[in-house]
């Protein structure tokens, strides 16, 4: 019996090759997409999956804002006051470091100063070196395997000397395996914090001396509640720094929350929302549902063709259950073929998809027991979803009907098949709406409403402030350099914060403002819009009062609504009086996840360590080469690195970019799968209605009316789908947008595009078959009947 089923399955596939192809291809794509999405989502949800992860907490700061950094003073005090903690470690994380190895320069990212407690908290995998001592002594460095390979090839790196920032020499005392991609601190080089202890001396006791990338981690003993530590924090703050626990808190953040807690968003780390990954899971589900719907639709449409076989088998004594088993068996064979192909495609394209989506996943993960379990579960789910209903439909025919060919009477009502087509259209419309909203929001993030000009501007580091004027002179001689401005950073770099108060305006307690140190060209070059007063002037070093340009948010904090009235007002900035000489319109100095903050611009030449250069749009890479030569001549010990401003802005939204790419990719796949099904369905409909078309043509129907005959139904189905998809799409995307302080509003246009796209996609899909059906000579179609 089984042999008979297998034989007939393969013969059926061979006979209806195009049907099998549509089914298997759609399902293959669906399975491959689901697997890739599963691995991506698993990778993200398993962020910071260290073996002791559930006992590791990051000490964070919650004063005015949530800050993932705390002062270096916190770790030693905690070690002292909480002897119950198994480990306390501090990390000074740096995005970039300049390395010199045997006179070769490298610029590396993901570098940190840390202590010997770090390896005890995070289970690094050591290739050589002693975890207990490798980071204890000054001038020690531990590097990853890939860095070792990059610098030393196959040579043993232990004991080799590495130079950092042209200042410090450190010796390699350990080599560890590379950390997986899904780590919040994806470190590649660890230098013992003892190395720079002298420089840090005055930072070791001051609670407010907080640098970007100063992290403190604690390891709880086993079976110890974090609440017991958290309860003691207020007393700890009071005892050590006389701080008011109502104003300053140290939330102990579970390690595994770091990747997702968006309260801590900053320039270095952009936490992501778990919702995003649940949404991606949703997309995977929609894709697999679409593929199953294809299966159901094509199988039930084909059932008419196979009614005779069912009839004969029943006449010969087959029970319905035997026929259900037979059809389920056939479905299983097709699905297993799709499964093998799908896993193959997933394995082949996983690294490519990983590149697009900026995640590092290895194809070997497909062989992990959990993944195999998921594949098995997915297969069973698909077999049941796709196979069960058609099997019951196909086996239900009464033999006398099926033998008399009385099975194909098209029912007038809203059949299940139509319902499924509506579901497919609704899914593709939801995904189109989703993709469009994400696309608009991405454009809004990167291009709209920034408050400054970002085009053709590069920023680079000025290692020695004393040579600033020489550099400026040299650059201004280059005809392809349009404008130059020196500053502590372009508008989108926010590094400096200061406390301010304004007793005259009711701001008695210290509030926080961002500070940008900028030269007299800055406001013009970036096109910041002045609302009142003067721009930033070159300061006279003798001035005792600081002249500042404030942004709108700051003057609103002073309860001044009219910018003109803010000019001439005084505030206290960093403990010194400051005079507002001008008001600038708010601009986006950090990601749009956050509300804009108070900001002041002021002249302070000592802090001009970034040069910002606006280039002529022509031959920008040549100009950058020229700048590189000029710069390298001035700073021969350094490595020239630059960043386009628009790329820096885009880097705030890497997570969103991931979502956008994923949406584009997987929505296209879902729509393609839907189209395959639609194509199959229309082929069957055309075949089934050959006789009707023939009769209509004999009676004089023109081509257009025949095409209309087929299209009419789809127009109705697409419209019904739209009324389902529009509210769901709106609701889902509206919720997603709430993650951002600044976001677009979803317009009617988005929905119009979605439904228009549905019509166009459907029209392209069905046109070939309908026109073919309409062009058949009626003599042939009627004779066949």
């Amino acid at each position, binding site marked *: 019996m089984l042999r*008979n089923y297998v034989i007939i399955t393969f013969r059926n596939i061979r006979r209806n090759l195009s049907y099998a192809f549509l089914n298997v291809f759609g399902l293959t794509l669906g399975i491959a997409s689901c697997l890739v999405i599963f691995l991506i989502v698993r990778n993200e949800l398993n962020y910071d999956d260290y073996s002791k992860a559930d006992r590791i907490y990051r000490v964070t700061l919650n004063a005015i804002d949530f800050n993932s950094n705390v002062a270096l003073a916190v770790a030693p005090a905690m070690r002292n006051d909480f002897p119950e903690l198994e480990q306390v470690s501090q990390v000074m994380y740096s995005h970039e470091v300049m390395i010199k190895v045997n006179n070769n320069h490298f610029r590396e990212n993901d570098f940190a100063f840390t202590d010997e407690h770090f390896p005890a908290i995070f289970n690094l995998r050591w290739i050589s070196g002693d975890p207990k001592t490798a980071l204890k002594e000054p001038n020690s460095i531990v590097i990853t395997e890939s860095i070792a390979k990059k610098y030393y090839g196959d040579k043993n790196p232990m004991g080799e000397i590495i130079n950092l920032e042209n200042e410090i020499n450190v010796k390699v005392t350990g080599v560890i395996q590379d950390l997986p991609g899904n780590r919040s601190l994806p470190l590649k080089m660890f230098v013992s914090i003892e190395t720079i202890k002298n420089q840090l001396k005055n930072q070791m006791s001051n609670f407010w001396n907080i640098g970007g990338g100063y992290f403190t981690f604690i390891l709880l003993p086993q079976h110890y509640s974090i609440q017991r530590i958290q309860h003691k924090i207020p007393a700890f703050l009071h005892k050590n720094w006389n701080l008011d626990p109502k104003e300053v808190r140290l939330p102990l953040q579970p390690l595994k929350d770091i990747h997702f807690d968006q309260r801590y968003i900053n320039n270095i780390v952009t936490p992501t929302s778990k919702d995003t990954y649940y949404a991606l899971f949703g997309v995977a589900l929609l894709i697999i549902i679409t593929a199953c719907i294809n299966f159901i639709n094509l199988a039930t449409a084909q059932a008419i063709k196979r009614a005779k076989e069912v009839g004969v*088998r029943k006449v010969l004594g087959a029970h319905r259950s035997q026929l259900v088993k037979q059809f389920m068996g056939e479905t299983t064979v097709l699905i297993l073929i799709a499964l093998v192909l799908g896993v193959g495609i997933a394995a082949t394209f996983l690294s490519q998809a990983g590149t697009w989506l900026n995640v590092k996943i290895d194809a070997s993960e497909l062989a992990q027991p959990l993944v195999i379990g998921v594949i098995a579960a997915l297969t069973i789910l698909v077999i049941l979803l796709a196979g069960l209903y058609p099997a019951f439909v196909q086996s239900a025919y*009464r033999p006398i009907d099926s*033998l008399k060919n009385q099975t194909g009477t098209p029912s007038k009502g809203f059949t299940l098949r139509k319902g499924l087509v509506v579901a497919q259209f609704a899914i593709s419309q939801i995904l189109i709406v989703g993709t469009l909203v994400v696309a608009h929001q991405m454009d809004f993030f990167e291009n709209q409403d920034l408050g400054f000009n970002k085009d053709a501007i590069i920023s680079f580091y000025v290692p020695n402030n004393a040579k600033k004027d020489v550099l400026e002179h040299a650059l201004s001689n280059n005809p392809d350099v349009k404008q130059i401005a020196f500053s502590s950073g372009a508008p989108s770099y926010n590094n400096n914060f200061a406390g301010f108060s304004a007793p005259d305006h009711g701001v008695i307690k210290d509030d926080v403002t961002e500070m940008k140190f900028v030269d007299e060209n800055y406001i013009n070059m970036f096109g910041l819009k002045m609302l009142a007063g003067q721009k930033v002037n070159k300061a006279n070093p003798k001035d005792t009062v600081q002249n500042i340009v404030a942004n709108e948010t700051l003057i609103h904090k002073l309860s001044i609504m009219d910018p003109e009235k803010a000019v001439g007002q005084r505030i206290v900035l960093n403990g010194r009086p400051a005079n507002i000489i001008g008001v600038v319109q708010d601009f986006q100095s950090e990601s749009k996840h956050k509300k804009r903050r108070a900001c002041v611009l002021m002249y302070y030449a000592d802090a001009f360590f970034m040069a910002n250069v606006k280039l002529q749009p022509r031959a920008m890479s040549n100009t950058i080469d020229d700048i590189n030569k000029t710069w390298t001549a001035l700073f021969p010990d350094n490595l020239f690195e630059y960043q386009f401003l628009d790329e820096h802005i885009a880097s705030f939204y890497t997570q969103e970019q991931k979502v956008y790419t994923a949406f584009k990719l997987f929505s296209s796949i879902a729509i393609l799968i839907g189209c395959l099904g639609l194509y199959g369905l229309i082929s069957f409909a055309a075949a089934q209605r050959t006789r009707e078309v023939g009769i209509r043509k004999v009676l004089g129907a023109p081509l257009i009316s025949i095409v209309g005959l087929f299209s009419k139904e789809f127009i109705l189905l697409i419209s019904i789908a739209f009324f389902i998809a529009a509210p769901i799409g709106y609701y889902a995307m509206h919720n997603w947008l709430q993650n951002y302080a600044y976001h677009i509003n979803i317009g009617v246009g988005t929905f119009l595009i979605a439904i228009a796209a549905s019509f166009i996609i459907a029209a392209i899909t069905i046109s070939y078959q309908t026109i073919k059906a309409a062009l058949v000579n009626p003599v042939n179609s009627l004779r066949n009947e």
Partner: protein
Amino acid sequence: MIKITNLEKFYRTEEVETIALNKLSIEVKTGEFVAIMGPSGCGKSTLLNILGMLDDPDEGSYVFNGIEVAHFTERKRADLRKHNIGFVFQSFNLIDELTVFENVELPLIYTGVPSSERVKRVEEVLDKMQIMHRRNHYPQQLSGGQQQRVAIARAVVNKPKLILADEPTGNLDSSNGNDVMELLTDLNEQGTTIIMVTHSEHDARYSHRIIRLLDGQTVMENIMI
């Protein structure tokens, strides 16, 4: 073997009720060869479907081999059918995806005959129908006459007590038609009961008895000598 009494069957649509069989009573004895004739719509096919347990009557009694089967469940009817009845259709109704051998083998699969026994019996019957040389061909590679031989082979492979034939020569030319009728006659002579629906007076002459139907009732019975 078969005794139907006051058999009634209606077909209902929303507006019209059609009587297909109207208090029909017929008896067929074991070993008989009966032809059923009548104009289109007289109820021939309905009768054959009920006799073949493909359909159930609305009223009346149907006793098959001493068992009342009129209101059997589908499963019970299927079980009784596969062991006792073989079918021959006008349009052959072979499964296109299966070879000649596999088509003939099918009833044996459903009655649970073991594989080695199946091969033996299928070869035996193909040999008898002189179609052995076509055993690996597909139906569409055969002529109409050959297809009907395969269909008859399939009908008899399970050694049924009754063969129901629905216009078995309807799609064949006269020479192939005669061959098929000879085959049925042979089977009948070997003891199989045959009930055949036909339009053809020529074919009907092969039978022992002709039952003529009109509007779901017997109008005449001719005994052939």
